[in-house]
């Protein structure tokens, strides 16, 4: 169930990001929905779990598939963000939220 959630939600956000928002708001700066979703999941996740890294990998791969230049660019960015957020949360922040 969790896996399906982490596949379909990023894919839906990807469709919003690439196909819906640019058409509906052509002149507006658009947020990176996949990145926002990733960071939210990383914050809610138990810092000792690594599901966020798989999500970063999947979200980065989706973003890389939607352009034609260097494949891996967004994977590296998403993965780096995941690593930094994890590092900060694990070492400097202590929050108790119902984790995923």
């Amino acid at each position, binding site marked *: 169930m969790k896996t399906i959630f982490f596949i379909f939600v990023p*894919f839906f956000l990807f*469709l*919003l990001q*690439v*196909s*819906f*928002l*640019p*058409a*509906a*708001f*052509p*002149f507006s700066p658009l947020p990176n929905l996949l990145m926002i979703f990733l960071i939210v999941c990383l914050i809610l996740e138990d*810092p*000792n*779990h*690594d599901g966020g*890294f798989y999500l970063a990998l999947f979200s980065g791969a989706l*973003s*890389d*598939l*939607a*352009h*034609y*230049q*260097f*494949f*891996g660019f*967004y*994977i590296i960015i998403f993965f780096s963000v995941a690593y930094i957020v*994890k590092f900060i949360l*694990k070492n400097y922040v202590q929050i108790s939220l119902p984790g995923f």
Partner: protein
Amino acid sequence: MNISSKPLSRIAIFLPILVAVVILFNFTPAGDFTRNAFLSVSKPLQSAFWSKGVSIQKDNFEEKDPDTRLIAEIAELERQLEEMEELRQALDLEINKDFEVLDALVLGRATENDHLILSRGSNDQVREGMPVISSSRVLVGEVAKSLKDFSYVRLISHPDTNFDGRVLGKDDSLGVIKSEENLIMEMINREADLEEGDKVVTHPGGGIYPGGIFIGEVAEIVRDDAEAFQSVIVDPGFKTRNLEYLFIITDF
């Protein structure tokens, strides 16, 4: 496996795999094949989302002030008709020269800015460098990458834009069109008599685009006494609004 328990061993496993995948995708046809397969699967959804976005954008635009909008649209259409007639005359019917076009559905905007994804690819004889125009024959950009069934269009607003243009004013003036913050036409003879509102069209000299395709209007003239040339800021005729179909010029 826990990320915190053995981070080094995890990275040691992950990095070679990532490097292998990156090499495989970037230096073999596997990358294009995967992108094409992914777009083939997501095409119906992307198309539906894009159409929905366009319709919402239209609705929002109409809701603001329907009467004013209609009057403005009629005035705009009349103005465009007059302009097109003027253009035809000015170009000695150059714009009416036949070129073969292929219609393509817009599926989305690529992750890079200033790129659109179209539903035509090399299977439809679409090749890199082919010009892309809107239904009103306004220059949109060129095909930057052609997959088997899809292609990516680099819009003229992209910083890599560089092609020959022509201002249709009192003097026909040639120049080079580039995109920085705005669309700029440079290297225009400083003696040329230009006015704001003059039409800017493509020039076939560079071999990139056929001649006479409308690009936009002169919005501002930049003239410096110290410079050997003058330049103009062009207000592009193409807007990324209400775009559902584009046309790829396959032969000109």
